């Protein structure tokens, strides 16, 4: 009798699986001062791979959102765009944006919530997920959705990229929250033929917010953005100080049209800004060319760059671990080799 009931209930369960609705992903589209974030374009590509509808969400102050929405409408893979503006969204804070997402997600329209692994999304998504009693997963490098079982399988690096975990979010997780490692997915292109529906969403005003934005200080640079640059020149502790870091690396970066990165040691010693740190706990990059100058190649640093296409290392120490992953290694004093390289690489 008991067993019969168990069989019966498992049958109804599998039937409900079969009639599961197709995936509908909500992608959080980030922008800075009206410019769509390229990481969000990769998140869109990942969302599209789920095989269902994809809705983009743009949140911000009114002066930027309209322009972003116009660009978002042209993005390949986007079915519709929701946008919400409020003075409260001028500086995005998780405390003021999460109520909007909670409200939007409470209707059960969406099966997945996707974003890039940006510093804001990393702050926002887990907060929203917890309120909806949903677990979340971060920095995924592949996505596969099985509509018949309503489960989604992800891969993601763990232990500083020294292992790849394959993880399944089963149907028991009602909304699947994940952030996307942007270097693992191509950016969704714009196409003129595309025209996603756009509709506005009432902001959820938070009265008496427990948090206030005071100021933002962005590191200004004419060089390409580290996260998306096709070439990166990175320096480590061997650069000695901030002045020699700049005077040695910047000419090389400029000659190659590359972004500048740094190891943790270089950042901690104050040679370069925090936001330039490449590694497990900094930026993860995968450019065409990664040039590691005076970087020994600790596990934590390799975690942030070992998916680069071509790795070049310049280091005095022939036994530095960086040479084990470098495609081209030069054992030399960087203070001699780098200027020479700048000279010879120029046409």
């Amino acid at each position: 009798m008991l067993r019969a009931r168990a069989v019966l209930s498992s049958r109804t369960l599998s039937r409900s699986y079969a009639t599961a609705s197709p995936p509908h992903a909500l992608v959080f589209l980030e922008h800075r001062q009206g410019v769509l974030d390229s990481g969000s374009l990769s998140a869109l590509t990942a969302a599209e791979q789920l095989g269902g509808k994809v809705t983009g969400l743009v949140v911000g102050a009114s002066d930027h959102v309209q322009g972003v929405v116009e660009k978002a409408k042209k993005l390949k893979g986007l079915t519709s765009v929701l946008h919400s503006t409020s003075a409260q969204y001028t500086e995005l804070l998780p405390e003021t944006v999460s109520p909007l997402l909670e409200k939007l997600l409470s209707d059960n329209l969406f099966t997945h919530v996707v974003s890039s692994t940006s510093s804001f999304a990393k702050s926002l998504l887990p907060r929203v997920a917890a309120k909806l009693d949903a677990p979340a997963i971060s920095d995924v490098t592949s996505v596969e959705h099985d509509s018949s079982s309503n489960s989604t399988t992800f891969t993601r690096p763990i232990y500083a990229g020294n292992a790849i975990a394959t993880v399944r979010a089963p149907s028991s997780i009602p909304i699947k929250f994940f952030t996307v490692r942007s270097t693992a997915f191509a950016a969704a292109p714009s196409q003129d033929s595309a025209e996603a529906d756009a509709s506005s969403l009432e902001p959820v005003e938070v009265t008496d917010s427990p948090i206030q934005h005071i100021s933002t200080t962005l590191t200004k640079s004419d060089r390409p953005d580290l996260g998306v640059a096709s070439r990166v020149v990175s320096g480590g502790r061997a650069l000695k100080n901030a002045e020699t870091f700049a005077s040695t690396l910047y000419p090389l970066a400029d000659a190659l049209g590359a972004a500048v990165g740094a190891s943790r040691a270089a950042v901690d010693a104050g040679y370069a800004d925090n936001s330039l740190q490449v590694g497990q706990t900094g930026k993860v990059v995968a450019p065409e060319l990664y040039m590691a100058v005076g970087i020994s190649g600790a596990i934590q640093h390799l975690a942030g760059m070992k998916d680069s296409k071509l790795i070049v290392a310049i280091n005095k120490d022939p036994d530095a671990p960086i040479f084990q992953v470098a495609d081209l290694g030069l054992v030399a004093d960087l203070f001699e080799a780098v200027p020479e390289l700048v000279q010879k690489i120029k046409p």
Partner: protein
Amino acid sequence: MRPSPVRLLNILVPVKRAVDYAVKIRVNPQQTGFDLNVKHSMNPFDEIAVEEAIRIRERLKDAVKSIKAVTIGPPKALDTLRTALAMGADSSIHVEIPESAPSPEPLAVAKTLQEIIKRQKDGVDLVILGKQSIDDDLGMTGQMLAGLLGWPQATFASKVDIDVAKKEAVVTREIDGGGEEIRCRLPLIVTTDLRLNEPRYASLPNIMKAKKKPVEKFSPGDLGIDYTPRFETLKVAEPPQRVGGGKVQDVDELVAKLKEAGITAA
């Protein structure tokens, strides 16, 4: 008793026992897990969290009433708590899970912390967590806890200034491309970035003293939290190995090889 115009701060610091950051982890041949017979230590970001709690006390003196460390982990996680106590925490809580149990997911950890906070007679004003653990690299527990409690959150903090009288904190955060400063009302969740501070080493006398500091024990059942993972780990695998391409003799050869690969001046 000294009269106090404001309530004194109670700080909670969750810590995790993780594989030591210098160990290169090995996937087992069955591809189901890791060889965990390796050195473990406190998650580096949590050391920064403990250090910050102690520095807040050093700055604010008697305004900090208690620093309590908490961990969820196997029996051996007690060592991690002892380290936190030796660094300067006053007392600790150990939610003990079986040796063989998988490491709880961030949402379950956040629910545990929520429950523990609820049980603190004097309340909790500040929770300082690491921004991520270096094993699962998820980086979510602090934000989830803030969500569950409805408290403000200051993630990736590189500077924390607390004004006890006003019951608020000004926090500098590391964000993509630079930094951000925010003002938050207490009670508050802070997650630590690397640049917040340089953790101290525990001195031998303090290690001895830590052995006498209280450790309150709970089982998951006591707190009513279910640690069954909601994600299924199907497999863990070694990442594709990169093979170094060998060395070049001099800069000329490097330039030639770069040109071959299509890399020229921009």
